[in-house]
């Protein structure tokens, strides 16, 4: 059962081949067997999962099942889950039991999905390797010496290792697409405002967006359909109907124009990754797409602008962790300042501390214009680059990440090198566009992802383009040997 896609599980449940309880038990057993070597889950909610599974089976008997009813899912530990620890990968929230559900969690519960547990992640979603987690690094199922990517590394590893057929993630600078690429699975970051951020612990509010991971684009279409939609509780949620993403999957790609930004194939891109990505582009040509070279001239400024905007917003968002109302509190503070400063220093790890410091500096008196305002102006230039290109093409394609998964420990002491892992994904967040990563091959044992970028609310087109590729190829069906 564990090797079935969500679409196949949905069909199997509908046909009565197995119950949700049987399926959930099988996956919980796999988690018990494999999680010690992967560290993909921070919390496994086995009892609650079985009770949700029995409720889903009951709902099916009553003839009220929806396509996702009874299908298990893993939730990134950034989404608040009522009554269940929501740690955000941080010591600060190690003992935080969320008092309410995130909208995404509520929506997936309403669809009848079964939560298996909460997945590991970089602390407060700040990282590209899952090594900044308070709960230790996650390992890549394709090679246990490699990182799974980040920040949604636990979700990506769980899906790649067949511990869960799907998982949620969040993407502020690449945190869905980069781990999807490094773990050989499919993941989509929707348009900013498409999925509610309510109950999703904030890192950088103008960039954060939730989305699904699964093995196929078809499964991502099913999950996104259930996650997306207007939420009056999120002030940046967009009030626009959610299309039927599954219905659009099979459209032919004949005549679809795919733009390849020359800046995404230049210096910094590993030669063997480039080779695999070029082969995927050739496959798209065979599927009828028309390939054109395009230019996003301000691409090189995306990382500099991001490392002002994201830290600035994080320094503000994380100011709420003061040791008073919830979260970690230091022992025996000697005065108010000591309570704040020690609670925060003890609760946050090094990368979070670095970003809070950078953000505090960028917003401080005398530096705001030179850093924050400048970054927001660059952000507009980057956004305008994309709009110029989308006047000519339907989809932009390129590598998701400049290299395959790197080794654990390889970049952990060098923040700048780590930041460059997100060189092709960050601009998409700055512009608020949807982006998808799908597996298109390997370099040695390690998977390579292709990134597809669409215009605002073009998730249908991205899922369609990924689905058609997956109908013609089998990279998405490859399973890491140790987890087959």
């Amino acid at each position, binding site marked *: 059962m564990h090797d079935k896609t969500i679409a196949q599980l949905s069909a199997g449940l509908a046909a009565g081949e197995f119950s949700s309880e049987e399926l959930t038990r099988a996956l919980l057993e796999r988690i018990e067997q494999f999680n010690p070597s992967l560290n993909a889950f921070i919390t496994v909610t086995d009892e609650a999962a079985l009770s949700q599974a029995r409720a889903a089976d009951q709902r099916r008997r009553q003839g009220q099942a929806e396509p996702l009813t009874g299908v298990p899912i893993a939730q990134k530990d950034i989404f608040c889950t009522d009554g269940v620890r929501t740690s955000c990968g941080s010591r600060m929230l190690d003992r935080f039991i969320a008092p309410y559900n995130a909208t995404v969690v509520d929506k997936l519960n309403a669809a009848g999905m079964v939560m298996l547990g909460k997945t590991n992640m970089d602390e407060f979603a700040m990282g590209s390797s899952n090594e900044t987690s308070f709960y230790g690094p996650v390992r890549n199922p394709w090679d246990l010496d490699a990182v799974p990517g980040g920040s949604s590394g636990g979700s990506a590893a769980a899906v790649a290792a067949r511990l869960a057929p799907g998982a949620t993630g969040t993407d502020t600078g690449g945190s869905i697409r980069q781990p999807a690429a490094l773990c050989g699975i499919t993941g989509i970051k929707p348009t900013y405002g498409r999925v509610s951020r309510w109950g999703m612990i904030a890192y950088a509010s103008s960039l954060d967006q939730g989305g699904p991971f699964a093995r196929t684009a078809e499964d991502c279409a099913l999950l996104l359909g259930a996650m997306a939609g207007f939420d009056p509780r999120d002030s940046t949620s967009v009030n626009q109907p959610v299309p039927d993403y599954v219905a659009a999957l099979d459209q032919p790609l004949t005549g679809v124009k795919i733009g390849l930004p020359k800046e995404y194939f230049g210096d910094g891109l590993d030669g063997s990754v480039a080779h695999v990505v070029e082969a995927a582009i050739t496959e798209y040509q065979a599927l009828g797409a028309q390939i054109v070279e395009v230019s996003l001239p301000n691409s090189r400024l995306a990382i500099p602008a991001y490392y002002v905007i994201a830290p600035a917003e994080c320094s503000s968002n994380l100011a709420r962790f003061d040791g008073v109302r919830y979260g970690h509190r230091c022992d025996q503070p000697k*005065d108010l300042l000591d*309570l704040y400063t020690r609670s925060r220093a003890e609760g946050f790890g090094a990368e979070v501390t670095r970003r809070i410091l950078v953000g505090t500096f960028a917003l401080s008196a005398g530096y705001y214009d030179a850093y924050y305002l400048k970054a927001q102006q*660059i952000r507009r230039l980057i956004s305008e680059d994309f709009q110029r290109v989308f006047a000519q093409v339907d989809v932009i394609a390129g590598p998701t990440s400049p290299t395959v998964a790197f080794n654990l420990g390889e970049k952990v002491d060098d923040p700048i090198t780590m930041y460059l892992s997100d060189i092709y994904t960050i601009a998409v967040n700055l512009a608020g566009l949807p982006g998808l990563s799908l597996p298109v091959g390997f370099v040695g044992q390690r998977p390579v992802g292709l990134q597809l970028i669409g215009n605002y609310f073009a998730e249908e087109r991205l899922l369609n383009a990924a689905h058609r590729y997956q109908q013609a190829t089998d990279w998405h069906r490859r399973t890491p040997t140790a987890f087959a």
Partner: protein
Amino acid sequence: MSLGPAEVGKIAHLARLAIREQDVPAYARNLSAILELVEQMNAVDTSGVAPLANPLDMAQRLRADEVTETDQRAHFQAIAPRVEAGLYLVPKVIE
């Protein structure tokens, strides 16, 4: 821009973060490297470019000022470090 230990101390105070003395040089080094990276922005003339705060360039939606939430004080306070009689208990040093 390069930051020295004194500047790191000042920023850490603004951010209410107690950084151990022995960690200050490493933060100064990392922060300086990050600022050097972000200063690549200065190569581009952005005069006259309107800053972009919301990626969809949308203004934040406002809602009517009406009570929509029920009272869940006890539920929310269940996760506080210490509470009594509906109040958050904080160490005595806070006046």
